[in-house]
């Protein structure tokens, strides 16, 4: 069985909009996959399905052997501890410092203070923010905030890193740096990475596996380097 498997997944929202229609896909451990599509194409729903922010109406979503759709509300945390999530809007706590924001993820899990410290510093070093541990999020640039978010996502050493448009709010230069950080995580830590984006430059440059979703349908699954975004897309 693959690390991540979607089988005939359908999602229809209560307002009648079909977000995903009969999507089946398998992703192996250590892969780096882009999920692309226009706004409202269903790629966000696809991503949210993986960390059970949404449940499928039918079909099964399996992540690391867990049937995600079947997880009870009370047990969601068990899944969340195995995955890291990076958001477009960073979702940092404004009243906590950089260090505290990253440590927060480990404190929630109930880890010892002694173990937390080296892990947090390690994660911050990996994203290149070790000097800013005492800063508050509003003292950082957008790129730096996104690095904090990435550090928080990987501090627990997850097997899967989900990125929902991580570069959506950043300028191209900063986006490049962020992508470098994410790519290194994939290479060094062998973390599986699934990233939703509509930044064609990034997709073209990185030459990874690409899933294309349009109107809720998986219209393309291109192996590494096969996908080439056209201007019309």
């Amino acid at each position, binding site marked *: 069985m693959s690390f991540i498997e979607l089988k005939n997944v359908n999602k229809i929202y209560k307002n009648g909009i079909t977000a995903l229609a009969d999507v089946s896909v398998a992703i192996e451990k250590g892969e780096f996959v882009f999920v692309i599509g226009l706004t409202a194409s269903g790629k966000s729903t696809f991503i949210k399905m993986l960390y059970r922010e949404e449940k499928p109406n039918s079909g099964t979503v399996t992540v690391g052997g867990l049937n995600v759709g079947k997880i009870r509300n009370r047990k969601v945390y068990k899944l*969340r501890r195995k995955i890291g999530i990076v958001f477009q809007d960073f979702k*940092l706590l404004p009243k906590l410092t950089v260090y505290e924001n990253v440590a927060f993820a480990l404190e929630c899990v109930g880890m010892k203070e002694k173990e937390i410290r080296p892990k947090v510093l390690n994660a911050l070093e990996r994203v290149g923010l070790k000097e800013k541990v005492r800063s508050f999020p509003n003292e950082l640039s957008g790129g730096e905030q996104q690095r904090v978010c990435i550090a928080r996502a990987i501090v627990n050493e997850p097997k899967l890193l989900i990125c929902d448009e991580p570069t959506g709010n950043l300028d191209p230069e900063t986006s490049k740096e962020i992508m470098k950080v994410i790519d290194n995580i994939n290479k060094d830590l062998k973390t599986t990475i699934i990233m939703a984006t509509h930044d064609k430059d990034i997709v073209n440059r990185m030459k990874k596996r690409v899933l294309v979703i349009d109107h809720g349908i998986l219209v393309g699954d291109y192996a590494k380097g096969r996908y080439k975004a056209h201007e019309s897309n």
Partner: protein
Amino acid sequence: MKAIRIIGRSFRDAFKSVGRNFSLSFASILCTTITLILVAVAIVVAANIENATKLIEDEFSIVVYLKKDVTDAQLENIQTDIKAQPNVEQIDFKSKDEWKMDMEEYSDTFDTILNYLDENPLFNSISVKVKDIEEIGSTAKYIKKIEGVESVKYGEGMVENVVSTFDVVEKVVVVTVIALVLVTAFLISNTIKLTIFSRRNEIEIMRLVGASNISIKLPFLIEGFIIGLIGSIIPICITIYGYVILYAQMGGELFTNMAVLIKPYNFVFFVSLVLVVIGSIVGMLGSLKAVRKYLKI
């Protein structure tokens, strides 16, 4: 170990967030304070009315006058018969000689008149305390039928009026207290809901990084508890000092010497305890209810 760490962190976070969200915490605390003051006043008033009615009701008793020719054996029988009544609390026999002595002591006029007569014109009597004042009429009726009883007096008419008035007052007071407690609960939980609404991002992030629902709820629960606790400080001070001063000012009486106020000590501590319990429990439940809303998908 892990559980202890999570609880420890919850306490730390709760205190931190009361401080960090001070303006909102302050609003919750203020709201708790104001409503608890109302509750305190209501409890004090209610308890005193309850106490006064009890005391006044206790004053009522049935006086049974016995026939002149009742023998000692008969007297014994009458007393056992009355005592056997379920509504009878206690009986006191008072002989006509005792009555005479009392009256002679009371005024010289009685003294002269009574000594003028050859025979003591007074009756032997039994005073009967009842358990339930509302049943006093039927108890009196029963006693009247006992062999050897001359007559029975219990303040007919007046007793019924007093009893029914007190009944209404008591009900009104109880309803008021309950309503106030409910209003308090509603206000506190609403204010806390507002403070939590402003922190729904925090809850969302906690969920996303894999905090279990319990470890998310715990800091908020403790925070609600702290808010309730702090909010009950001023009402408690007002209750303790206010009531002690009031008691001293009024000389321990409620307008007439028929009704005395409840003694301040122990009573004020009891009311304080009730306030702390209401404040902290309502605070906890209020924040629990509010957090729950954000823990659903």
